[in-house]
């Protein structure tokens, strides 16, 4: 531009977007949000189909879903959809909002929605299984989409309506299966409030679209004009940058952050005291139910009683996490916990009781080495694997081994490489492991699916790592799926049965709730979500799939600290 080497004066607001692009080389600090904790390397793709490794914000900021899900109110929030309802038991109808435009100016229509869901017919698209029970998707008119089901899995459907990105048919049409699944999708065209501005080795930069539909339709506007998401190689680097005020939000697990929150460092977390964070998922101890002695429910229950979770929570995590309830259901699902079941069949750390349970079940220390032997008298030495380098889990595993020793169970922690662990896990070649791969969702259904899914395959890749084989439980889970999501009582009836089975058989043992790690600095942005006062109650996370669970709403609540 003609400015030559003379520095251009700071852009004023009225110039809006134009000004921002005119001098995009240096982002104005007061209008930029710096985040980290999602991405660990260079941004790889902008493909919303790749919900697990697309660049931060691909889904949620650039592409959007029909609904969002409000975790506090436990209900769907219409988003691209104006409304959605079951017109009969197997037909679901969505009405789209008027006037939504793609970032290239084309209007969003029912055909885009149809296209997006029909992409799932491709075998390798992650939501392909939807078509096992979805019969058809039709555009009734430009604003109306009708879904017809062969089997109405209400719980799963709700999950789908807030999880699946809606893609522009006019751009994606004709892409091959390979391109759909593997394409980088440079220059994504979405409906969302942001678009990608640039990327580099360690970051992506998103720029707000000032013509975003939600401004008027939802009366919402995310406050940061720019979002820069940084890939930090490690948690401690993130903490360092946070303290240097280079970052506004870190979604990393930052040990010791409690000290900083209490001190005067301008750092906040959701709660000002333990556990500091909302809960995001449950960490489970997964015993291999097909192996001796873990195939014995009595043993598993004794094991559950032998673990001093408090020690982990306090010792390893410095109270950054919360001990899990015996059901393992996240606090957000508290209403589904059947207290009667818990009080009659629950468990708690009690070494003496664990010892007794063991000996009652026939596990005795016959050779006097302080550890019980198998029923047949053979030595018992169980290995607990967690991925090498996951320090908090490694420490936890050590802690578990120590407390199990108190009850006479010999556990040796082992730290294989992550990939080796994945392989062992899917082949069932392990004694015990720790896993937390199910996140908070709209329904405990997803949790019970994770716990009980059948049939057990040779390779168990994502669910039921314990290989717990209980037909009745799986039937119940499927029944739960068929319960309408607003029928809370109907759901409860099934979940309490499932809890009974879980606590009786203890296929997997809940340990603690991992936090929805969100440490924010108040130096540039304030009004971060917090448990106290009038602050927003949503989660401040940039993690993939969490924008729909309140992450996006949090952005709209931010306020610049300067003003």
């Amino acid at each position, binding site marked *: 531009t003609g400015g030559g080497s003379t520095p251009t004066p700071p852009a004023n607001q009225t110039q809006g977007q134009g000004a921002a692009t005119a001098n995009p080389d240096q982002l104005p600090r007061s209008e930029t949000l710096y985040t980290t904790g999602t991405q660990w390397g260079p941004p790889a793709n902008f493909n919303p189909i790749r919900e697990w490794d697309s660049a931060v914000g691909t889904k949620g900021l650039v592409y959007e879903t029909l609904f969002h899900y409000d975790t506090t109110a436990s209900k769907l929030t219409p988003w691209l959809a104006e409304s959605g309802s079951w017109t009969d038991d197997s037909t679901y109808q969505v009405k789209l909002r008027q006037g939504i435009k793609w970032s290239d100016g084309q209007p969003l229509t029912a055909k885009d929605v149809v296209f997006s869901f029909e992409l799932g017919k491709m075998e390798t698209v992650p939501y392909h299984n939807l078509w096992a029970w979805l019969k058809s998707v039709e555009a009734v008119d430009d604003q109306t989409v009708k879904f017809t089901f062969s089997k109405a899995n209400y719980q799963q459907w709700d999950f789908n309506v807030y999880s699946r990105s809606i893609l522009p048919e006019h751009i994606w049409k004709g892409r091959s299966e390979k391109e759909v699944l593997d394409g980088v999708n440079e220059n994504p065209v979405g409906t969302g409030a942001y678009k990608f501005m640039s990327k580099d080795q360690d970051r992506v930069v998103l720029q707000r679209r000032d013509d975003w539909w939600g401004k008027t339709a939802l009366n919402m506007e995310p406050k940061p004009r720019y979002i820069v998401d940084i890939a930090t190689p490690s*948690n*401690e680097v993130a903490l360092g940058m946070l303290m240097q005020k280079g970052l506004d939000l870190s979604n990393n697990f930052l040990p*010791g952050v409690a000290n900083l929150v209490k001190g005067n460092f301008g750092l906040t977390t959701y709660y000002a005291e333990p556990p500091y964070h909302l809960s995001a998922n449950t960490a489970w101890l997964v015993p291999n139910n097909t192996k001796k002695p873990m195939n014995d429910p009595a043993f598993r229950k004794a094991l559950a009683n032998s673990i001093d979770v408090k020690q982990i929570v306090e010792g390893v995590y410095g109270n950054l996490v919360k001990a899990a309830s015996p059901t393992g259901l996240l606090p957000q699902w508290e209403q589904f916990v059947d207290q009667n079941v818990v009080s009659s069949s629950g468990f708690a750390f009690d070494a003496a009781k664990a010892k007794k349970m063991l000996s009652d079940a026939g596990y005795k220390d016959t050779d006097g080495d302080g550890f019980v032997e198998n029923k047949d008298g053979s030595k018992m030495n169980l290995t607990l694997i967690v991925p*090498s380098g996951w*320090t908090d889990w490694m420490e936890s595993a050590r802690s578990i081994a120590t407390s199990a020793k108190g009850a006479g169970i010999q556990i040796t922690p082992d*730290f*294989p490489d992550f990939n080796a662990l994945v392989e062992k896990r899917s082949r069932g070649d392990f004694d015990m492991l720790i896993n937390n791969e199910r996140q908070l969702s709209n329904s405990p259904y997803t949790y019970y699916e994770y716990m009980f899914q059948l049939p057990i395959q040779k390779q168990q890749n994502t669910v039921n790592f314990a290989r717990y084989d209980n037909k009745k439980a799986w039937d119940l889970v499927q029944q739960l799926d068929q319960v309408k999501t607003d029928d809370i009582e109907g759901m409860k009836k099934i979940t309490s049965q499932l809890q009974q089975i879980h606590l009786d058989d203890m296929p997997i043992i809940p340990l603690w709730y991992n936090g929805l790690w969100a440490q924010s600095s108040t130096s540039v942005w304030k009004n971060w979500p917090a448990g106290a006062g009038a602050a927003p109650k949503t989660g401040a996370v940039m993690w993939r799939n969490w924008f729909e669970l309140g992450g996006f709403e949090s952005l709209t609540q931010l306020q610049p600290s300067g003003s």
Partner: protein
Amino acid sequence: MTTLQEVAPRERAGVRREALYFAVRNGKLMTGLGIVLALLLLGMIGPLLVDAAPNQYGPQPMSPPSGEYWLGTTTFGQDIFAQFVHGLRSTFAVGVIGGGIAAVIGMVVGFVAGYLGGIVDEVLNMLTNIILVIPTLAVLLIINAYLGIRSVAVQGLFIGLTQWPWAARAIRAQTFSLRTREFVDLARMSGSGTGRIIAREVAPNMSSYLFMTFILLFGGSVLIASSLDFIGLGPTEGVSLGLMLQNSTQWSALQLGMWWWFVPPGAAITAIVGALYVANVGLDEVFNPKLRET
């Protein structure tokens, strides 16, 4: 890293006694050895003094050095002094194992190539050059990551297996010049075989040089091990100074101001390796009259 020098021809007069005389008067050698021995001693008897297991959680997390915890505690209340003394042991172990293995391979290859010459030399030399050019840390990274190194000993083994080439090269050069000495011919004419000549004629003449090579290999192994530990590819069992460093950074000791967690292990590694290098220079001066301060 200090480079090894050619062994200068020795003065004939009283090599041994003179060496000892200069050894005890060589400040560098004595300081270096002193530091190394002090730390070695600490690593030997330290673990007997502290009864806490190095990784055992204690009641006072994050406390700075005090009378009770000499070097303070970690985020988990582990006694850093206990970790430190155990870590010293592993560090010495890795040095001895890694340095030892590398020295042995380097010696075998160097001696054989240097003494036999010809095609054997060509082949061994090529092998040496190949391994020399390969960035070994990268290879170690891969090996460590995929083999899942468990113990300090295995770590030492792998380090030893990749560290030997420069030693082999140096020893080869030395052997080359020694084998033209006439006492080697004389030994041949006394009916000694190759192995015997290497072991009984060549090697004893390079003993100081071999020792210095070992020292450098020792230091190198310690440094490499600490790097591996630091990036999380260290042994999964036990404590080492490198693992302490790794833990301290992973648990943000830096940002939380817990200097007592990350300063001692690094300082100890530096002290051990540095002292060895200094001692090495001292040794060089002892054995090589030209280097002595006049």
